[in-house]
């Protein structure tokens, strides 16, 4: 599949100077200590985000000559980019699920409602991180969904289960690297929704069983474990350092 994971359908709002206002507000209100916001002086450019003013902090993700992405977890910006990468993957998956010709026949009405809602939630998460990160965001990722049979209910739901559990474990494991309380709070608002998704998808696969919550404690996986699991589904190589 050659579509990118990022399927924005709406331009971000801009003020009279062409500055992306929502990200400026986001940074101001998220309380990013030490964040420097350099407003570009000419119309048509976007607000530049620089990482927290801490010696040695990177200016966001490093992109290699072949598109390989290196995220430095010593910077909150790149922890957010990590979340953005996973949300891109999830959003692209559910968009593909919902646009497949078989969607209306392989899923019952309640299942369709569930999957469309989850699609919207994941798109919202993806767009939120894109707006928050602005020019510091990583590029649009290219999904690899060749192993998924989108015309098969079980294939779709099993993949959804994998992605949702992975998402929960990723947020749970990445929280310890976040330095800013505002960002930690935002991650917390999202991870419980991912857990609600995981529970629901698991129940669609095995109704009224105990599968919706297989353990008293969810996993908190390292980014290395999460990215190894996600690797088969993403063209671009993603590496995390300082985690």
């Amino acid at each position, binding site marked *: 599949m050659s579509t990118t994971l990022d399927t924005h359908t709406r331009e*971000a709002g801009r003020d009279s100077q062409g500055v992306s206002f929502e990200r400026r507000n986001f940074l101001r209100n998220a309380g990013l200590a030490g964040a420097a916001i350099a407003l570009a002086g000419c119309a048509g450019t976007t607000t530049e985000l620089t990482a927290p003013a801490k010696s040695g902090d990177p200016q966001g993700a490093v992109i290699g000559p072949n598109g390989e992405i290196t995220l430095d977890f010593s910077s909150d910006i790149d922890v957010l980019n990590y979340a953005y990468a996973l949300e891109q993957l999830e959003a692209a998956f559910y968009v593909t699920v919902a646009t497949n010709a078989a969607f209306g026949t392989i899923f019952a009405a309640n299942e369709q*409602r569930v999957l469309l809602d989850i699609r919207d939630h994941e798109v919202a998460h993806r767009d939120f991180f894109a707006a928050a990160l602005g020019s510091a965001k990583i590029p649009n990722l290219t999904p690899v969904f060749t192993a998924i049979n989108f015309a098969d209910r079980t294939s779709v739901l099993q993949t959804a289960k994998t992605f949702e559990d992975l998402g929960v474990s990723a947020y749970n494991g990445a929280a310890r690297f976040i330095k800013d309380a505002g960002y930690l709070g935002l991650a917390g608002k999202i991870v419980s*929704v991912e857990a609600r998704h995981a529970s629901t998808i698991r129940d669609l696969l095995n109704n009224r069983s105990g599968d919706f919550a297989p353990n008293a404690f969810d996993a908190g996986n390292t980014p290395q474990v999460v990215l190894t699991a996600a690797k088969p589904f993403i063209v671009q190589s993603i590496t995390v350092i300082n985690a």
Partner: protein
Amino acid sequence: MSTQLRADGLLATIDPEIASRLVTRRDAIAKGAATSGLVMAGLRLGTVPAALAALSTSAFGQSRLPTTVIGVLNFALVLEYLEAEFYNRGVAATGLIPAADRTIFTTIQGHENTHVEYLKTTLGASARPKPTFDYSYGNGSGTGPFADVFTNYNTFKAVAQAFEDTGVRAYKGQAATLLPYKDVLQAALTIHSVEARHAAEIRRLRGNFGDNEPNQGWITRAITDIPGTEAVYAGEDNLIQGGVDVSTITPVAAKELTEAFDEPLTMAQVLAIVDPFIV
């Protein structure tokens, strides 16, 4: 009792080989590098609470748990006591839970009791005792609005939903306070997401898995179909995330945007909600 003693006592309950690894890899634990593997080891051995408690306490070495951490964990413990006894009594109540639904509730019951044990073990002598509960929501009168909670299945499910959704918001609200205490933060978050899994299952069960609003796994706006639980859902209709109205940055509709972000409650807000349950 010092945290070191508690940690060592815990280690004695774990497989000797694992205990050895816990001790010898303490430096790695302090950096968080071994957390996942140790938790997985605990999962395999069924000793997750002990493994997590050892992780949490080892992070503080010989010193006692910081007062801030004790406060948060005791707050969580009250909520877990409340949930655990609720499910213990519900599962034990003859004729309350239909056979088809028992697995759902025994699963949750097991988790909440495990959370209690984890918190008690981590807190050691600092753990607060279990309060006496009035599940009718009557401040000890036994005649509150949920007086039939252990005889009427619909009431039982409704109170379960309120507990789980409150629990999610309660843990979420403490994340920032735990930010400096990485191991405790991670342990709390791994409970937080399990409470969210519980909440989704019970919400859907209440709608007989039809996934019609408002009986979906997620919270739409601040809607509740349970009279008296408005405070549990207050503020869930928030659209301002990180200072930005998210409806301006995505084509996703406002209804789904409110579902996409769960909202925290402060400790004071949660305690006000649960107060009538505590005698």
